[in-house]
């Protein structure tokens, strides 16, 4: 049996290699495309000063070896320069502002959806064929296939426009006393609520189905019969024995979904004008703010990889069979 330490090191090395491959990959994507397209889309709208900046910072436009080395070094050292749109602001500052908001939103959404999925899925699987089970299935199937942006708009229409319970957008209210951390927190939560509902509903569908299926698998096991025969109450059997064993795939899925916290809410953030990472990405592409776009692509990728590493380590910790 391999040790945990060796496993971690192994995975970390893989992460680094993967990251390097991603850097090369994005570079090729940008560099190998026909220049008239690149010229057409992004670079024809730029001022000469901006083009020069891109050359210096990312090596765009220079001959291959020069270009790639500048690019490679800067990417690896996180030297992303300053934004075009917010002139003078270092890109890393912008990302630093946006990232916690996204983490707040998606972190809460993921945790909430898996928690709800656990609870509802347990009951749905236990009382298989019942009302809860059937409605849970219909719900899951439907919400699994809803476009996130459409759900967001419809909820906006109903809950923020027709019956204005929630705010229409933004990540914080403008009339908040910034020095009071409690009211700041409250306002942040208030604005994150509706996007969180959207995200939760969508991932709940997947989590619910998974938990339910897993419960069905577990129900056939013998120790469930033993527990019932022992005279334990239904609730005890359900939660103390059945679901505890059924939860493993759910935990796997939860861990696997963590990496997507970072880039997963692009659309939702766009609709709600929630200034997180996804919103920054979309608006930067629209504004042709290339330094931010390049930087975000890598930051998001590396965060995804880091979360992957974290997920793998956690999983390796939980399930020793995985370590090689």
């Amino acid at each position, binding site marked *: 049996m391999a040790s945990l330490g060796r496993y971690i090191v192994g995975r970390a090395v893989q992460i680094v290699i993967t990251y390097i491959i991603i850097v090369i990959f*994005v570079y090729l994507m940008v560099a190998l495309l026909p220049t008239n397209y690149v010229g057409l889309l992004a670079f024809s709208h730029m001022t000469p000063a901006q083009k020069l900046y891109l050359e210096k910072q990312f090596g765009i436009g220079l001959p291959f070896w020069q270009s790639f080395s500048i690019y490679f070094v800067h990417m690896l050292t996180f030297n992303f320069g300053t934004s075009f749109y917010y002139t003078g602001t270092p890109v890393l500052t912008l990302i630093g502002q946006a990232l916690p908001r996204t983490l707040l939103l998606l972190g809460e959404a993921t945790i909430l959806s898996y928690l709800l999925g656990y609870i509802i899925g347990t009951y749905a699987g236990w009382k298989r064929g019942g009302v809860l089970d059937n409605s849970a299935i219909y719900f899951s199937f*439907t919400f699994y296939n809803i476009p996130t942006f459409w759900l967001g708009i419809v909820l906006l229409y109903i809950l923020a*426009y027709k019956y204005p319970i929630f705010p229409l957008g933004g990540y914080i209210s403008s009339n908040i006393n910034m020095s009071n951390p409690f009211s700041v927190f409250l306002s942040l939560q208030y604005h994150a609520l509706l996007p969180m509902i959207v995200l939760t509903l969508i991932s709940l569908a997947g989590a619910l189905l998974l938990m339910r299926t897993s419960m069905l698998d577990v129900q056939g096991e013998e120790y469930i019969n033993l527990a019932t025969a022992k005279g334990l109450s239904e609730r005890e059997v359900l939660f103390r024995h059945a679901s505890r064993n059924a939860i493993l795939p759910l935990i796997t899925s939860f861990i696997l979904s963590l*990496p997507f916290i970072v880039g997963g809410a692009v659309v939702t953030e766009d609709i709600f004008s929630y200034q997180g990472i996804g919103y920054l990405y979309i608006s930067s592409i629209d504004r042709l703010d290339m330094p931010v776009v390049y930087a975000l692509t890598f930051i998001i*990728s590396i965060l995804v990889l880091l979360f992957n590493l974290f997920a793998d380590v956690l999983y390796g910790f939980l399930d020793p069979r995985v370590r090689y």
Partner: protein
Amino acid sequence: MANVSYLETIRSLRRSAKTIWGAFRRSPSGMFGLIIILAFVIMAIFAPVLSPYTPQQTAPDSIQFMSDSGHVIVNMNNINEPTYLVTQIGGRGGSESTTGIVVYNNTGHARVYDLGVTGNGSKLQLKIKDYHNYTIPQGINQMYSFIYDPTTSMSYVGLANHTVYILSSSFSVTKSYNLTFPIRYFSGIFDKYPFSSYSPTMGFAVSGMNHTFLFIEEGNFSALTNSVKYYSFTMQFNTASNVISSPLLYLYLSSNPEIIIPTQDGIMDFSILETPSIFNLQLSAGSLQWSSKLEYPNGSSYSILPTGIAFPDNSPSLESNLGKNIIMVPTKDSYILEYSRINGSLMSMTKATFVNNAVLSGLYSGQYITGNITMPVSFYSNGKSYVTFWNPLINKLSSSSYYATIPGEIIGSIQYINGANEFMVANQNLAYYIPVTKSSGNVTYLPMPSKSGFYPLYIGNVIQGGVGAVIAGNYVVTVSGNGLFYESVVGYKISPLPPGNYKDPATGQVYNYPLGTDYEGHSIWAWIVYGARLELTIGIIAAISSVLIGVFIGILSGYFGGVMDALIMRLVDVFLSLPFLIFVILLVSLLGPNIWYVVVAIVIFSWAGTARVVRAVTLSLKERPYIDASRAQGASNGRIMTTHILPNVLPLTFFYMSTGVGGVIITEATLDFLGFGDPTSVTWGMLLQFLQTTGYTLLAPWWLVPPGVAIILLSLSFYLVGRAFDEIVNPRLRRR
């Protein structure tokens, strides 16, 4: 070597297909999904039958635009005389008290309806606030208003049979002139902006029999008193023969004033003498400058059309070269002649031809519009009139393919609507707007390329003098019977239209929009039905491509193992760890907005998932004994992969193919919505994006809901079908 014949393979395939179908039929969700998919396929194929409109067709403007309109009953002392109409534009200095609609009859009654114009830009509203009755001289048949009268003593000119009245703003008579001839023609008020010293400020002429009466007022700025003093003059011109249509006035600063009178013997040009005196400029009738016979160069005579002669440009601005140096004369033989105003010589003669051998029926004074002189010209043939524009600078129709068709004959003259770049024309029943420019084709009603939008007028019967008043450049008023109809020229757009049936008030045709329209007037139902084509196409192509690529790579990697396997798995890991949407957006924004680039981008970032699963399956299959057996029999690697591994892998991938379609549809819609889609593609995502960019997201639920529901249904059905199929083929999920 045991060889399985193709016949056997096909038979066994048919058998398994039958069992699979039998099991599938028993799955309610699977059948539901399949039915929905078939419904969409039918929708896509029979789209032209299901929707009478294509996604590109828009509702006509008369439905999309609404204007402010109203109807007031005019009851003037119970007198059953036809009521007439006068214009009153904006008043002096725009003050509200002098803005109103004047209604009068020839038994001495006038009424002014006070107007308030509220709102702005695209939503002007006319409010009739009040009315006042006035007494006017009896027998007035026509009334015209002055625009730029600096005093209140001259607001209207009223014409009775033999008398000219100058009326104040309260309709009291300030001047009157008795004439020896019946008034037949009126020249239209020449109304130039005041404060131009030593020049006529305004004037008009009336003609009848062989006499023409001219009234001119001029303003004289006195430095002494630092004010303008106004003087009025009258003079009469007697011609040898009868006047046959309205005279033209040339009263400009740059040269001597003239009046041009068309008579039976010819077109005559008289000068107006300006004699300076101590205190002001004296005006009196001058002598005949030139006269030009109504004859073609070959000597044959011609008749002028009843619409009369005209300057190319009617506005007070263009004095000479472009607008006033030429006199345009239309003849009953469909010729348009150009005479020089300066010496009366015939400058050119052009035959005005039109389609269907229509004859020239009128030439109307024009306007200088964006670099061109535009004169409305009408042709008549077979019960229809055709209105288009003549450019006197090139002596040709401005455009040979652009014209409006008006049923019947044109009544009155064609008026220019200031600020709207349109002319207005009426027949017995309707008034029409004719925009000056257009895109293509022969249409009766045209949208103007502007935001506020215009649409054809429909205000009831138009009588007596053709189209009515234009008020403040924005409203049209006509009178019929006892009714005063008013309607705004500037309409506002009421699209997107909620679901329902809409009747075009102008043509009477009913347009049916079961799901309503979007902002441009496209039928939402048409978009749903035609959009199904592209959705199904790209969904299926993208999903199948990505799965096939994944299968190919997965089998290769799993079967051969070793270094290639390690490398490929590394690549798969890279692709799997890339955040999907981020990179698809990046790739699409780099490639360009084309629907197939979207498909390519989605496929590039989707194959990795299938590859990993297929590799795992291949690994386990590889160890099965029958693989060894085939290898022992000498089967090549390729053969083993295609005949043994592939058939066992494929059924497991059907799930991914089917659910993949739903994923592609949703991803494409998301890309469209974010702005990275193909704007020319007819997909449901583009419809939603259009909803968002026009800002009607929260305002048009009939536009918001159907595309979303369509996406959900189609994606859900593919998911259910895939899931049902998977339950059959994959032993994991069966009900226990």
